């Protein structure tokens, strides 16, 4: 869910906007290393993909359904810097062209969904990758756990921001328990779907998955002298 206008007070919104601009700036420099001159078309198409995948509804049962946030998914698929850029651009387009998420809350939304989920997702993923055996089959599971962790982490950051500049004096314990409770559930969905989606890509085009490049088995060039029928 996008934070609307008026949810956090003006100073907090301005502060998050400044931090968000800084993070996007860092991501712009970093993304050049991940994609070089391909950055614009590739990140643009990946952003369109993230936007579309957020429209894909996953039924939870009893007529309700949820959708992916896609932060950790983006980080594992295209790398953390490009991931931050893609999700941030998605949020910008949703704000300006679809009136989804307030313009004064854009910085907050970018910080929560564009930066926090991608960065936490990527850090957890990297941590798991360095501690577990280097095997391609483990990448989807690592991505799933990373996606699961990224959602409550963003909720935690939201509670922190709300404590600083929230509109109503809700008891912080109540808010923290409610937000974490709900977002652990959402995180389970996010984790399972990310696990399945990364698994589907790894099965067909493991070379496209940024997070799998390091564990991709190096194949030696093999010159065959005889043509086998």
């Amino acid at each position, binding site marked *: *869910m996008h934070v*609307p*206008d*008026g*949810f956090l007070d*003006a100073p907090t*919104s301005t502060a998050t906007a400044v931090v968000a601009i800084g993070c996007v*700036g860092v991501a*712009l420099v970093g*993304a050049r290393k991940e994609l070089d*001159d*391909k*950055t*614009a*078309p*590739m*990140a*643009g*198409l*990946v*952003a*369109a*993909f993230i*936007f*579309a*995948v957020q*429209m*894909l509804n*996953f*039924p*939870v*049962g009893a007529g309700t359904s949820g959708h*992916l946030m896609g932060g950790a998914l983006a980080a594992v698929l295209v790398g953390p810097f490009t991931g931050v*850029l893609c999700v941030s*651009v998605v949020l*910008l*387009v949703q704000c*300006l*062209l*679809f*009136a*989804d998420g*307030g*313009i*004064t809350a854009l910085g907050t939304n970018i910080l929560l969904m564009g930066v926090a989920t991608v960065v936490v997702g990527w850090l957890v993923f990297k941590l798991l990758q360095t501690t577990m055996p280097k095997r391609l089959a483990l990448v989807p599971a690592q991505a799933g756990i990373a996606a699961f962790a990224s959602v409550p982490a963003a909720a935690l950051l939201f509670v922190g921001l709300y404590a600083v500049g929230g*509109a*109503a*004096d*809700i008891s912080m314990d109540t*808010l923290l328990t409610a937000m974490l409770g709900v977002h652990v559930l959402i995180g389970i969905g996010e984790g*399972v*779907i990310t696990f*399945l*989606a990364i*698994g*589907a*890509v790894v099965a*067909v*085009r493991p070379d*496209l998955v940024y997070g799998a490049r390091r564990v991709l088995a190096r194949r030696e060039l093999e010159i065959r002298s005889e043509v086998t029928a």
Partner: protein
Amino acid sequence: MGAGHGHKLHYHGHSVVHRAPAHLKILALLAFMLVVVATPRDWYAAFAVYLGVIAVVVAVSKVPPTYILKRTVVEVPFLVFALLLPFVAQGPKTEVLGVTVSQHGLEAGIALVVKGTLGVLASLTLAATTEPQDLLAGLERLRMPNQLVQIMAFMVRYLDVVTDEMQRMKVARESRGFNARNPKHWPILARSAGALFIRSYERGERVHLAMLSRGYTGRMPE
């Protein structure tokens, strides 16, 4: 698909609001909403004035008010949160229609609905009167980094292509009798998402090669 060049919220027109430079409209929206957000929540008269400002802009733009009102459904999820506030907030209690609720929570809930609704109305007005390419030009004039403008331009350009691709996959699934009802069906949907990523990524590579063959050097021609 292929019908019209505007995005889904755009309402074609030639009014002063439509023709105003996009960068001014973005700045005006941002300034207006900052004022709205910074207004103390018990200044009810001020909020009425803000609503009046939006109403005047909508009237000048000749976008039918019903067109905008119908699209305010995007704010439904946070209305639910605003409704909960009176019940979870602390502070002195008050009674509304025989139900005991928190005074602060009630005020905050009302303020949230008012400010949020003003935000959605103002944003919808911008979206209804601004073409995506004008918006991009406006953001560039506001000194948004060129790289970011380019990424956004590609996203906006290929948004319908990618969402249509997803729609075709949905039609294909359903024409084979698939109907997603519970988490048992997630693997199929997730595989669709994976396939959509591969198709989008490969399309990006093809677009990039097509651009290189036309002399692209990493920057858009001036």
